[in-house]
C-alpha cells in the first residue's frame, strides 16, 4: 500500500503555501484557462516568449494543494525553456502522473519527481496534471483546457472521480 502522505511532502506543502510566479502578466503572448469540472477547480496560465524561450510565466486560480503546487513548480521548471523542451516536459510529467515514466531512465523531471506518488491516487491525478494541460493549451493558443475535454489532445484515461 502506497504511503499517501508521501505526496504531501514539505516541498509540495511549501509551494502550496507560497506559490512561485503567482499572479498575472502585464503582457502575455500566450494564455489559457484550465478547468477540472469534477471539483470546480480552475487555473489560468499566462506566458511570454522572448524569441525562442519562455521569458516569463505566471498562474493563478482556485485549486487544491496538489494542483497549486504542481502549477507553482511547473512555472519554475518551464521558465527559460524553449517551447519544444516545454512540450517534452509536459509529456514526461503526464507520463509520470499516470505511472508510465521510468524515473530511473533518462528524463527531465528533476524536482518534479515529488509528484510521482500521485499515480497511486487515481482521483488525484487530474489535480496534478491540470496545470500541465493548461500550459499545453496556452502553447497552442487554445483559449481553455479541461481535464475532461475529449478533443483535448492531452486527454487520457486517468480514472474518473465520481460525482
Amino acid at each position, binding site marked *: *500500500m502506497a504511503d499517501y502522505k508521501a505526496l504531501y511532502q514539505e516541498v509540495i506543502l511549501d509551494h502550496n503555501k507560497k506559490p512561485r510566479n503567482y499572479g498575472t502578466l502585464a503582457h502575455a503572448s500566450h494564455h489559457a484557462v484550465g478547468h477540472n469540472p*469534477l*471539483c*470546480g477547480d480552475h487555473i489560468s496560465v499566462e506566458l511570454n516568449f522572448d524569441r525562442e524561450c519562455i521569458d516569463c510565466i505566471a498562474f493563478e486560480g*482556485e*485549486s*487544491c494543494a496538489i494542483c497549486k503546487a504542481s502549477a507553482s513548480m511547473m512555472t519554475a521548471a518551464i521558465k527559460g525553456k524553449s517551447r519544444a523542451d516545454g512540450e517534452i516536459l509536459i509529456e514526461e510529467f503526464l507520463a509520470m502522473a499516470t505511472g508510465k515514466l521510468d524515473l530511473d531512465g533518462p528524463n527531465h523531471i528533476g524536482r518534479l519527481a515529488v509528484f510521482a506518488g500521485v499515480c497511486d491516487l487515481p482521483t488525484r491525478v487530474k489535480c496534478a496534471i491540470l496545470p500541465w494541460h493548461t500550459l499545453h493549451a496556452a502553447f497552442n493558443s487554445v483559449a481553455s483546457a479541461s481535464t475532461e475535454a475529449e478533443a483535448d489532445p492531452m486527454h487520457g484515461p486517468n480514472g474518473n472521480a465520481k460525482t
Partner: protein
Amino acid sequence: MEPFNVERIRADFPILQLQVNGKPLVYLDNAASSQMPRQVIDRLVRYQTNEHANISRAVHYLSETATAEYESARSKLQSFINASEEREVIFTSGATDAINLVMHGYGRKFIKAGDEIILTTLEHHSNIVPWQMLAEETGAKIRVVPIDDAGELLIDEYEKLFNARTRFVGVIHVSNALGSINPVKQMIAFAHAHGVPVLVDGAQAVPHMQVDVQDLDCDFYAFSGHKLCGPTGIGVLYGKAALLEKMQPFKGGGDMILSVTFEKTTYNAIPHKFEAGTPPIAAAIGLGAAVDYLSAIGMDAIAMHERDLLNYATDQLNLVPGVRIIGTAKNKASVISFTIDGVHPHDIGTLLNQEGVAVRTGHHCAQPVMQRFNVPATSRASFSFYNSMAEVDALIAGIRTVQKVFE
C-alpha cells in the same frame, strides 16, 4: 423491542471489518452509498443459487419462484413506505431513473410551453437536469425556491412562486449536500391547494426516517436501493395510481405490453407499463431483504441513534478551530458538510483516507447549493445507523491530523 446495540448491528456488515491503509475503516460516505448487511448478501446468494429465472414469462418452477419473490419484494416496499396499493410501487434502476420516468411519463404529456415547474436550490442534479431537458423541449419555465444561510427553504418564497401557470413541483426531502430536512408535507398541501402535483426526491430520506407516502400525500416519491442497504441498480418510484394510469410509458419493450401488432400496441396495466424489459430481479429481491432488515431494527430506533451521532459530531466539529459546518438547519438528517480553513476539500479527503476515514469531497452533485454558500466544494461526513460514536472521534482526530499537515 431490544435496545439499540450498535456493536451487534456492526457485526452484520462484513465490510466494516476492513482495514484501510492499516487503519480500521471508518465509513462516513453513506449518503453516496450505504453498505450491505450479511442478511441482504445472503438473500442475493440464495436467489442466484436456487431461484433465478426470468419473471412473468414461463410456466416452469423457477420462473414462477422468481416472479413470486420479485412481486413479494414489491409488496415489502409498499409496506415500507405505506403506499396504499402494490401497483403504485414501480421498480426503477434508482432515484435518477424514477425522476426521469416522471419527466417523460408525466412531464412530456402534461407540461406545455409557458407552464412553470417549481424546484428548490437544494435539489440534487438528478432533480434539476431532467426538468431542464423538459423545459428546453417544451418551452416550460423553471422557478427556484431559495434557501437561507442555514440551508433551510424559504417557504414564504415558495408560496409566492405559485401562479396560474404552475404545473409541477419537484422537491428533495432531505438535502444530500447539507442534510436539511424539508417540510415537504406542508409544501405538498400548499401545492395541492393550487391543483399542482408534487414529486419528492426521497433518496436521502428513506435511509434515515420512517416515510409514509399517504401521510405526506405526495404524488410521486423516488428513491434508490443502494442508499438503503440494498444493491445498486434498483430503486423505486412511488406514484398515485390515478396519475400513473394517466401517464405515457417511459421505455418501450417486453413486459410493458398487453399485445403488440405492427398496427397497434396495447400497454400493460401499472406497474408493468413502466417496467419494460427484464428488470433487475435479484436487486429488487435484495432490496426487499434490505427493508426487512431495516424494519426489524425499526426506522424510529435508527433515527434516534442517528440523531445522537449528528448531535455529537456537530458538537465535536464545532470545537475544532478552523472547521465550519455548512448547513445548520434546525431539522437535519445525519449528514454534515464542512470546510477547514486553508485546506481544499480534496486534500482533506485524501488525508482522511490515509487515516482510514472515508468522506465525500466535492460539490455533491448539488452545485447550486455550493454557489449559494460561495464555496467550490465541501467535505461531507454522512452517518448511518451502523456508525458509532468512536467513529465520530476518529473523524475528529483525522481532521486534526489534516490541520497539522497544513499548519
